[in-house]
């Protein structure tokens, strides 16, 4: 589903991401981990088109998406959630998700019809599937942190992605919230046959659900394999000892 080949990006001599290559199979749940500053966010930004890479390529489902603008990549089946909650704060929950549908289904150019009538059913269904049913008219900015994260997931899902990138989905959450979020993500991933790639600091979460783990350290890939392999890898242990 996703093939990253020799991806590289430097900022004025500082190598943020260097020569990273890995693949994610269809419907696989993969994680990218690494200590702070390892380049995880940069890697995500390179994949989703927010940063143009200096070298290497990104291929999504057979299609080269290297350096393509984010809004186009979104349309090609890649969804993403961000580290800091990224929603539309002054719009209602309904309007948030509906907007995503409007854009994805190509209705954005319609400047004549009334917006409220479109995609009501789809929005309701999506909101129910992420656990926000009944909150349609709540202003998004007033939601709790956890609910906002759910909404953000909804925004990513509205574009009907095949691959979903999640940037620290359980950041700042309590143990129970983390549990709920992970359960929700797993449920959605299986319901929609999604391929998942996420980054996380919470190692328990990672080893709980990831089928494949890539480890970044100072911009370079130091390990890549299933959880057991990664856990046993000596370099990984060296890098992480002292961190956890």
């Amino acid at each position, binding site marked *: 589903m996703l093939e990253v080949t020799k991806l590289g990006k430097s900022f004025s001599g500082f190598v943020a991401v260097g020569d990273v290559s890995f693949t994610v199979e269809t419907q696989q749940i993969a994680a990218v981990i690494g200590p702070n500053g390892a380049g995880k966010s940069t890697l995500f930004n390179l994949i989703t088109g927010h940063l143009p890479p200096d070298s290497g390529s990104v291929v999504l489902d057979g299609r080269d998406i290297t350096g393509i603008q984010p*809004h186009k990549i*979104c349309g090609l089946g890649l969804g993403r959630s961000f580290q800091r909650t*990224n929603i*539309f704060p002054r719009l209602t929950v309904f309007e948030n998700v509906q907007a995503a549908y*409007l854009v994805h289904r190509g209705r*954005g150019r319609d400047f*004549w019809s009334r917006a*409220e009538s479109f995609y009501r059913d789809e929005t309701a269904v999506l909101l129910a599937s992420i656990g926000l049913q009944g909150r349609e008219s709540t202003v998004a900015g007033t939601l709790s942190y956890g609910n906002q994260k759910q909404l953000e997931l909804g*925004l990513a899902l509205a574009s009907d992605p095949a691959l979903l990138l999640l940037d620290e989905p359980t950041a700042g959450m309590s143990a129970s919230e983390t549990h709920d979020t992970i359960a929700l993500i797993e449920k959605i991933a299986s319901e929609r046959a999604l391929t998942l790639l996420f980054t996380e600091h919470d190692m328990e979460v990672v080893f709980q659900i990831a089928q494949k783990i890539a480890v970044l350290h100072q911009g370079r890939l130091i390990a890549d394999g299933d959880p057991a392999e990664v856990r046993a890898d000596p370099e990984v242990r060296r890098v992480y000892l002292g961190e956890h």
Partner: protein
Amino acid sequence: MKNLAARVPWTLVVFLLALTIPWLGGRYYTFLATQIVIYALFALSLNLLLGVTGLVSFGHVAYFGIGAYFCGILMKTLGVPFFIAFPAAGLGTGLFALVFGYFCVRLTKIYFAMLTLAFSQIVWAICFKWNDVTGGDQGLPDVPFPDLHWIASLPGFSHFRIGDQFYFLALVLVMLCVAALRRLQSSPFGRVLTTIRENRERAAFVGVNVRRYELAAFTVAGIFAGFSGALFGIFNRGVFADYVFWSKSADVMIMTILGGMNHFWGPAVGAAVLTILNQQITSYTEYWPFVLGTILVLLLFVFPGGIMGALDAGWTRLRHRRSNA
């Protein structure tokens, strides 16, 4: 109650109410009303950028001016009749907005604002100096009124003079523009614009080509500003370069914020209030800038949502009190 308020066709109501002014008031009120109506359109066009899309433009007066000069030159210098000159002015302004906007939307925040200002001052400098076409610092005096004699033949309208007749024309044209803007803002396109305002980055990652939408908004806002400028040139009996100076951009921005940029009618309310206040206060004192500055400070610190925002908040509080009682 709020749902009831939402179902009232406000555009029609405002139109009908405004229509009665020449019958009720004297020539002074018609004059004031014409000015308000024109500035209301100008402010509403700015709000498409400011309140809806979140684009802070310091150079919106450029399109007001281009529309005014376009229409004025067509009508006065070239003798083109109004019903051609007016739409041509709008389209011509739209073209400028498209070109300028193309460069502006490649920037964000303060840089965007500065470039809009730079373009606006370029327009001003050209209008100020191009004696042959724009009349330079003398401007374009005596822009003719359109031929409106036919209004006198309408039943009940026979006693109106050209000032009132022009008011009716301006009112109808402005209301059509307002209706169009209303439609635009509640459309899917308008909804996408609000996502850009709320979170540009997120909008891009639900698939919005942010630059393209911003350019579209910029152009549309320019067209409507051009329409308001065209009307103003005639109303003012002339087009002069100082109407394109950047301080006018600040004035219209204050109008928009005074009325409330989070509400569709906010800018129109702001235009009305500010115009009336200006008329009243300048008759007592020359220190209008001081008053305006103070109003602005009050707005920023106490009523950031403007008049409509304050009304909204007051209404919500009243409702809560009623439901708690």
